[in-house]
């Protein structure tokens, strides 16, 4: 089975078993193995069309973690030891060196503040093209170049980019690809030794300072907009308390005095990353929506069936907050009581 994937029916190589398309390199940090599965899945969906094999670079991990990666589809894992000073490390330089050593066609990272900035530094060093936050990858049949679809303008639009050369770097939303199937680990694990050049900056102070607003750490957020009204805000505070979540607000609700500036979510407020976002009486302008990171499940409750938020929401209830919220709270209390 493996031989089939490695064969080069599409290439002009003399050696039918060699991967003349180079490799697709997936970069994973030790603490991010869950994301690795979907990145490797995405890698596997494009590697055959490029005639490439899938390799992984594990930053700061051990052999056990490397084995996990082999099981989910990497044919080779490079263990990259990086010298670190706080959040600065040699990873970018090391990865650039690794990419230049083998012929790497594509490098994949998990999208996020860390992944995007690491991908950016590597792309800068290699002079490569970069697409941030891509939601799907494919290979264009004619040119054999990788294509990525990228959401833009807070999800209102989609842009499709095509790489113009090698390597091309993409950061992917971690939940996009189907994770690859488990298989026996048959690949190799090797260390990539990299000699650090230059000194890392010194950390002179390290302060434990959890994000001031619990909203930025919250997994559940119940946010109210202008449509909620003062009465609606009282009800949604209760809902948030029942769910163990935090209350947020749109700009109009803050302007009306029902919430504080610290609770404002959106372009001029906070960017939040919850798992569950319940939007009550929020119409859904891009300026608000851009404050909700991708990956959240959005429940929208609004009395206007044509509100733009319904385009984005995963669950939509059309109704008045005054009736829906108490019903929802009561139902949840019943559910929790019976747990």
């Amino acid at each position, binding site marked *: 089975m493996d031989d089939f994937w490695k064969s080069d029916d599409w290439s002009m190589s003399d050696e039918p078993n060699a991967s003349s398309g180079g490799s697709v390199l997936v970069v994973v940090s030790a603490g991010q193995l869950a994301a690795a599965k979907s990145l490797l899945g995405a890698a596997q969906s494009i590697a055959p069309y490029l005639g490439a094999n899938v390799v992984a670079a594990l930053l700061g991990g051990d052999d056990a973690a490397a084995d996990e990666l082999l099981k989910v589809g990497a044919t080779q894992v490079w263990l990259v030891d990086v010298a670190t000073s706080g959040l600065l490390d040699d990873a970018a330089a090391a990865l650039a060196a690794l990419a230049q050593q083998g012929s790497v066609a594509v490098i994949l990272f998990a999208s996020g503040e860390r992944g995007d900035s690491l991908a950016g530094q590597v792309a800068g060093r290699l002079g490569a093209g970069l697409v941030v936050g891509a939601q799907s990858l494919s290979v264009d049949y004619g040119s054999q170049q990788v294509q990525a679809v990228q959401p833009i303008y807070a999800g209102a639009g989609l842009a499709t980019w095509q790489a113009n050369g090698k390597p091309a770097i993409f950061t992917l939303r971690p939940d996009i690809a189907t994770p690859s199937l488990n298989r026996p680990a048959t690949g190799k694990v090797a260390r990539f030794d990299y000699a650090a050049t230059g000194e890392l900056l010194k950390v002179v102070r390290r302060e434990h300072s959890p994000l001031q607003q619990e909203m930025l750490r919250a997994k559940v957020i119940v946010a109210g907009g*202008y449509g909620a009204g003062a009465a609606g805000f009282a009800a949604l505070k209760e809902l948030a308390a029942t769910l163990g979540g935090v209350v947020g607000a749109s700009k109009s609700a803050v*302007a009306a005095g029902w919430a504080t500036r610290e609770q404002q979510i959106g372009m001029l407020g906070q960017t939040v990353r919850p798992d569950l976002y319940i939007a009550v009486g929020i119409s859904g302008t891009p300026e608000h929506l851009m404050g909700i990171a991708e990956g959240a499940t959005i429940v929208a409750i609004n*009395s206007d069936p044509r509100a733009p938020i319904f385009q984005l929401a995963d669950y939509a209830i059309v109704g008045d907050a005054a009736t829906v919220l108490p019903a929802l709270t009561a139902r949840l209390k019943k559910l929790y009581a019976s747990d």
Partner: protein
Amino acid sequence: MDFTLSKEHQMLKRSLREFVESELAPVARDTDLHERQTEANLGKMARAGMFGLPFPQKYGGAGMGELGYCLMMEETARVDSSTTTILGAHIGIGAMTIYLDGTEEQKQKYLVPAARGELLAAFALTEPGAGSDAAGIRTNAVRKGDEYILNGSKIWITNGPTAGVITVFAVTDRTLGARGGVTAFLVEPSFEGFSVGKLYDKMGIRGSGTAEIVMQDCRVPKANVLGKVGLGFITAMKTLDGGRLGLGAGSLGGAEAALEACVAYAKRKFVCDRGQLTPLAYQQYVQWVVADISADVYALRQMVYHCAHMADSGQKFSQESAIVKMFGSEVGARAIERVQQVMGQDGVMVGGNIERGMRDERISRIFEGTNEIQRTVIAGEIFKKVGLKV
């Protein structure tokens, strides 16, 4: 004709809008309740140059002219009329007297710190016996050596309690009356014989301090005579022209805010109409209110900005500014009253913007020249053009 604001005024308006919505709006209710602004906000406004917005940069101002001043009044009045009043009295009539008629020394001593927000200015003309009949003031000033001794009291002085310099109008020659007998003086609260009297408890604009000031043998150095002795009334009238314009701009802001509140309310409030839940906006009365107010606002906006343009280009604008103040305050009154009716019970809740707006708005038809006086001024200007003195 291009009526778009220039780029710098657009940026000014945007910055003001952001500031007002993020800093003044959240504390507007507290400002009203506790009758004062927060130090933090006053500091920000001073650093931004709001206290001297129209004055040239060489006098410590921001140089944005009468138009910039009107934009500021409009934007602040959208959320907090008390702040608008403080700024209006300070810039529009207080510091403006010094800008129009002060000597270089007086400008350096008073106008520059006032523009920077280090000193608050006020304008004192009204007396217990002379309100609309301003020519009947009785506070007198007697020359004694190098000083003038002032005796009398002035009432309803905005910024009175905390002002650092007050332009006081006093009679220097009773026989000449208003034409040649009144002089303007720059009085500091530290002068001997000056005291702040009663603090007024007002229905609205409670965040702005208003007080009586009392002068009992108050000693004012002769260097503090503003303009020429005897020509104080002209200073007063000149200054009030610009002040009125600013107030009209304030009414514009209030009316716009009321209209936007009405539109938002009508959109989200659902009422049962013939068995179906529909937005309140479907009701004809509400649509007419919105249409009427928007017509008023459209007219007032053009009026305010056109008049500001006249002021900035050096033209005489007494008649126009009186119209702006009169029409503007009445537009504001109609707007807030009708919006409150549309919003029903929601409009009379204490702590809400509409209830506070209603209380704040009432004074605009009364102060800085009642609307009756404005009408007198307008008619007087018109008849003067055809040779009749009315």
